[in-house]
């Protein structure tokens, strides 16, 4: 009796939970309503099967409980019943599979009027490239990547000159415009995922993967990384703003092309250059941005000489002693709002001096600095 009741409670409780719990898909923000529909069909068919089987189980456990001396019915097989059940199951499977395959067919065939957006991923940040006025991306490959050429664009490709390079983690997309997302990775697997859009796809170094969607909802959405990519996986966060066409045009005008980026690169002193390469080869830029963006660690833009708040309520001016300590013993002082996740590094005095030179080179005029993005 108790067992039958518990089985029944588990089955009915699961159904009740499904309808009463507040947790479900976020509001759909794209054209992929067919995905949600297929989920609904699957929910109904599977839910009905689950309830029927579970209730029968509970009922029979109750009804046919042990009575000493009674014999159970001897019926090794019932081909007719087995055939019927097989047919019913097959029909159920077909009904679930059919809309799924139709939707998949749409998912993998990109409409010809879709515009392209290249998403670059690396540990642990996103950046973007648009094909520019000619609508064609310049050729790019990881083997061409340098500090000045973070996306690895091939030297001398004429299609590359007007490509728009967006090193910020925020990208804007005009509403209702079909977008083909091309995914590239610098290092390991990542996965570009905006839950409201439903679509996702891994980025794989060495190849270009894709998916497409059409945003239907204005708003600012989080871009998550959905494929394990190392210790900073959970911090890899971009933003996708779906905006009106006007707002998009304004934003687009403010972005730099590849040609402009090459021309506008601020030359560094040899010492600062040395510092940058020390920082680069030790992976500092995986956690410290150079554009004011908040990442796992504090940005290096305008860091040198600034007054910063510590999590114990004190404040200090970033000077050589603090930088030295933060490299050798990162846990000693923690900036307010950050956690102690950095591993200690042993740098030579010469290397520390060069990194400080590089920090000095990262002091920018106020108006050039991008607004730090709020991350909450």
């Amino acid at each position, binding site marked *: 009796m108790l067992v039958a009741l518990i089985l029944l409670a588990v089955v009915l409780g699961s159904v009740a939970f499904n309808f009463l719990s507040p947790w479900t898909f976020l509001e759909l923000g794209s054209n992929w309503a067919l995905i949600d529909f297929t989920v609904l069909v699957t929910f109904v068919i599977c839910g009905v099967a689950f309830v029927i*089987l579970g209730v029968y189980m509970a009922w029979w456990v109750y009804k046919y409980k042990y009575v000493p001396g009674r014999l159970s019915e*001897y019926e090794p097989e019932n081909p007719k019943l087995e055939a019927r*059940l097989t047919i019913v199951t097959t029909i159920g499977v077909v009904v679930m599979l059919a809309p799924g395959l139709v939707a998949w067919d749409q998912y993998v065939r990109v409409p010809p009027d879709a515009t392209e957006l290249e998403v670059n991923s690396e540990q642990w940040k996103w950046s973007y490239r648009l094909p520019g006025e000619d609508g064609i991306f310049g050729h790019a490959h990881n083997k061409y990547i340098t500090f000045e050429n973070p996306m690895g664009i091939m030297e001398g490709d004429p299609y590359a000159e007007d490509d728009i390079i967006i090193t910020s983690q925020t990208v804007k997309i005009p509403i209702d415009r079909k977008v083909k997302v091309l995914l590239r990775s610098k290092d390991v*697997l990542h996965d570009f995922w905006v839950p409201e859009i439903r679509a996702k796809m891994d980025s794989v170094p060495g190849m270009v993967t894709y998916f497409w969607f059409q945003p239907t909802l204005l708003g600012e959405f989080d871009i998550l990384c959905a494929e394990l990519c190392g210790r900073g996986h959970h911090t890899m966060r971009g933003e996708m703003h779906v905006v009106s066409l006007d707002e998009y045009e304004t934003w687009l005008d403010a972005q730099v092309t590849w040609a402009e980026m090459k021309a506008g690169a601020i030359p560094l002193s040899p010492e600062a250059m040395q510092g940058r390469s020390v920082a680069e080869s030790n992976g500092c830029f995986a956690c410290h941005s150079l554009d004011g963006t908040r990442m796992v660690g504090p940005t290096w833009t305008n860091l040198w000489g600034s007054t910063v708040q510590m999590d114990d309520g004190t404040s200090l001016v970033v000077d050589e002693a603090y930088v030295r300590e933060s490299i050798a013993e990162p846990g000693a002082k923690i900036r307010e709002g950050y956690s102690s996740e950095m591993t200690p590094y042993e740098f030579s005095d010469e290397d520390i001096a060069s990194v400080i030179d590089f920090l000095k080179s990262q002091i920018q005029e106020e108006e050039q600095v991008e607004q730090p993005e709020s991350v909450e």
Partner: protein
Amino acid sequence: MATAEIPYQETVPLHHPKTWLGKYVFSQDHKVIAVQYGITAMAVGLVALVLSWLMRIQLAFPGLLEGFGPDEYLSAITMHGMIMVIYLLTAFLLGAFGNFCVPLMCGARDMVFPFVNMLSYWVYLISVILLLVVYPLMLFTDVAPTGAGWTLYPPQTITAGTPGADWGIVLMLASLAIFIVAFTMGGLNYITTILQARTRGMTLMRMPLTVWGIFIATFLGLIAFPALFVSAVMMLLDRLIGTSFFMPAIVSLGQKLEYSGGQPLLFQHLFWFFGHPEVYIVALPAFGVVSDLISVHARKNIFGYRMMVWAIVAIGILSLIVWAHHMYVAGMHPYFGFFFATTTLIIAVPTAIKVYNWTLTLWRANIKLTVPMLFALSFVLTFIMGGITGLFLGNVIIDIPLSDTYFVVAHFHMVMGVSPILAIFGGIYHWYPKLTGRMLNDTVGKIHFYFTFIGTYVIYFPMHYLGFVGVPRRYYETALGGTFPDFYPPSAHYLNIFITIAALVVGIAQLLFIYNLVHSYFKGEKASDNPWGANSLEWRTPQTPPSHGNWDERLPTVHRWAYDFGVPGHDTDHVPQDVPRKESA
């Protein structure tokens, strides 16, 4: 029938061990090897349990655990997954149940190659030691366990942004390769024994379903594990001598690496060519065990035996052509989606048939709600839940929003964690009397059952809904106030806390089980030769526990299938397999 013909094998003298060491340590007796496998697998499972507690505490109460940062979290998920899938479930279902059940149920004296069988255990033990040695090493060196996730996807597995990318991963890969050697030695034994050493009258279509499940699972293992073996070796070469099987040109944390031209997707194909059959390597023996438990304790023949056998065979074959449903978002050729979604959903048909037949076996039965039966029933329910969520994920387009979320975590824990473990518990409660000669305590067993079944259900059922909300898996932090996005509602975090508390309770409840195992071994009620009134041959041994060699002078002769319960015209409600048919039919 001429009684003078005694087959050769019945007269061959067994080499009985002469020393304590030969009897209990380097034993060639399949029953001792089964116990060795079982105890080792359970011990390593406890490590995985503790790791899961640490992960759950971090998710619900971030910052509570000092020194449990992202590196430790990722190492914990990796080690937990690897232990549960390979070193616990595979080792227990095939190493322990396979060793114990196959010779006894087939009416054989032992495995066909007892020495190789013994080696299989010791090689397995080496692989376990190699897997866990990283923890003591951590204390004295800077070797850290790998945090690549149990799927070990390159390039991150061997690049600097992942914990343990230098030596932790090498230990893991070496351990896996050695495990596969152990599995192969065991697996060849199971298959050869089943094909060659069945006793008189034990036709294939009279074998208990447990043996069928183990048989097909072992076939799958022998086909699938080599794929893991080669991928482990190739990755070791990539890591140690700089080949580029899986490594394209990449810039890792600002450094250009020497690799170029490799293909990360190749690894994923190899891994899942192993990894999907692996699901059925675990599931098929569990199916078999549960079929036998339900039939015995419901005192009714298993419904549709032939269909059950062919369903096992069909699932086994189909499981070899569905692997890429783990890779729908991996960036493989999109047209693969059509093929793999179709094959995956086809597999639902034979699987559903098994569920129907278990349920229909209860119809007009005479159900004894013993502890093994409770576990078997709960297996059916959790397996239905895990199966139908598999229909979500197998249908390629639904996998797009749900893959890499907690929906996946909930699904595979339900279908491949909870279900087989419930089947293992059921099997242990069922066979313990034969193995030790003593019954397990019934009351403690029932308390253990209720905590385990209800506890695991309330852990994993609500977890599916976190996946719909959009909580990604393998995130160190999913709590508010951390780095998690705004759309994650506070209520979902409370759910996370609830799940953690349930996980702690379920874990503690397992102490009851261990207590029961140990206490009953010394103090338990004495078991009769056939306490459940079962029909298969392991219950017909002349001694309980069976002696070395299992049978007397003569091997038993089989006259019927193992499911003659409630046969009209007999005095008892069951007729064992070795009881002759009446002359007049």
